[in-house]
């Protein structure tokens, strides 16, 4: 497969805004055109090859190597192809994307998949704050697609999300699913406080006990039928969601009554 390989020569001193690194743009660009792409180093316009070594051309598969902690907006608004990052990456990874796949072998910054519409993001390390969240002043966050984080995540995961799936393998911090309007968040390692605050609709599944808001009402324990189907879908993504009755059951909580909302939080309670 024809691939474009970008290697960061040295970490930028200030933030490097490089929304040009998307499969959509590189697909019909020659090596010279890719090298000449404009990136913003702080306030200054620079060429992409001031920072990166570029190998390959005309492909929608991009491999990036190096410590990209200060490189922001990679894969912004992408619709196809793939981006693979070997190293840590900065904010707004895959924001507003509507297709394609991003894989990060390292940690990611804030706003991973902010307001994304479709596609898949897989972070093998930790993610920052506001995963799949809405930008400030925006009413709707993530509208579809899948975000998988193997490690921990920061505050406000899935803030105002409308549809889609977020899976956090490690522990999440405060305000998971803040004001969420739909979609699914799966917390494999639990979360800190105020999970599901102000949620209107949507589902949060937690495999660990949660400290819930006082505005959630207890609605009994059961094994929801849809989780059997959902668990099979998640199995394809490599996530094991327990659902069998002999293993345990889910405690269901409904809220947030402050809104008032009809969101649900399902907390797994294993047998014994």
């Amino acid at each position, binding site marked *: 497969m024809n691939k474009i390989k970008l290697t960061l020569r040295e970490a930028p001193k200030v*933030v490097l805004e490089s929304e040009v690194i998307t499969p959509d743009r590189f697909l019909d660009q020659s090596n010279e055109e890719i090298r000449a792409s404009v990136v913003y180093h702080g306030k200054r316009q620079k060429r992409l090859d001031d920072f990166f070594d570029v190998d390959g051309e005309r492909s929608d598969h991009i491999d990036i190597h190096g410590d990209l902690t200060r490189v922001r907006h990679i894969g912004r*608004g992408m619709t196809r192809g793939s981006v693979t990052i070997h190293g840590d990456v900065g904010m707004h990874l895959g924001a507003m994307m509507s297709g394609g796949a991003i894989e990060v072998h390292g940690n990611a910054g804030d*706003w991973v998949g902010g307001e994304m519409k479709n596609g898949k993001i897989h972070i093998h390390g930790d993610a920052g704050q*506001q995963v799949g969240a809405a930008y400030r002043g925006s009413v709707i966050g993530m509208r579809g697609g899948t975000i998988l984080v193997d490690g921990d995540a920061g505050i406000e995961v899935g803030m105002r999300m409308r549809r889609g799936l977020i899976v956090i393998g490690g522990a999440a911090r405060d*305000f998971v699913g803040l004001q969420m309007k739909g979609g699914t968040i799966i917390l494999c390692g639990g979360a800190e406080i105020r999970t599901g605050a*102000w949620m209107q609709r949507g589902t949060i599944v937690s495999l660990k006990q949660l400290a819930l*808001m*006082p505005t959630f009402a207890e609605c009994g324990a059961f094994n929801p039928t849809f989780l059997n189907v959902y668990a099979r879908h998640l199995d394809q993504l490599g996530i094991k969601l327990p659902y069998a009755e002999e293993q345990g059951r889910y405690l269901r909580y409904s809220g947030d009554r*402050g809104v008032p909302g009809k969101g649900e939080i399902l907390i797994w309670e294993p047998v014994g």
Partner: protein
Amino acid sequence: MTCTLGEVKNRADFIVYWGGNPAECHPRHFTKYTLMQKSRFLPRGRKDRTMVLVDIRETKSVKAADVFLQVRPGKDFELITILRAMIKDQPISDAQLAETGLTREQLQDFVTRMKAAKFGVFFFGMGLSMTRGKHMNSAALLTLAAELNAFTKFVAMPMRGHGNVTGADVIMRWQTGYPFGISFNRGYPRYNPGEFSTVDVLVRGDTDCNFIIGADPGATMPKPAIEHLASVPTIVLDPHVTHTSKLARVHITTAPAGISAPGTAYRMDEIPMPLRPALESPYPSDEEVVRRIKETILKKPDWMGERPQMLTSQVG
């Protein structure tokens, strides 16, 4: 939703201080605006007003309050969300209420009083906006105030401290459309607190030069931010020697605004107040220093290059 302190003075019959200690931090607030003043609509002054204090501990302000609600530390967001549910008659169990450290009678009384008020005001302090949850705690109280407008007139106003902090917000707002956390690196203002707000930028070390006017982040910000201030060129404009100016590469002494330099300060309700200098100072004003720096910078070549340079696919 907010109003001026003049409106509070003339009309507010229900005043809530949340997470603040006005008796010690804003000592003239009670007498000048909120409690003691008589007006056409509140002819008996203090007797026509009700004051509720919500805080985690008993402070000197308790004496001035009609009702004191002692909330458990770190439970403000939960309490406000419960109140949001209660004003809509949503059921909340006693066990859930107990988490906030208050009883059902106290909260039901508070809700009844809020709904019965003619003009209610929330004043919220750092006890709310600077504890765990931060901006969401403030957002919760603002939302509660907005929702109470289904029943009566209600407004919320932050209790601002320090010199002209409101002024900085107001000026940034009418100049750019955003109050703080703004980046101009693309030649137009972009707003994103958490990404461009001062403390986050400094903690991550995303700057290669800092220019600080009339503030002392070296005294208040977290350690990594202070270390970053010391590690890159920092320029400080301040009348005094501060923690920040000791870290800075350059410290330009300026005339203190309002004492030796004229200007406009904004009151906490965003009313501009002209300041007339009382004393003369040998130092230039902040405005003059910034203007002279700007004139020098303008002689350099334009850095913006080709326009437009909007962040692509920002919408849609």
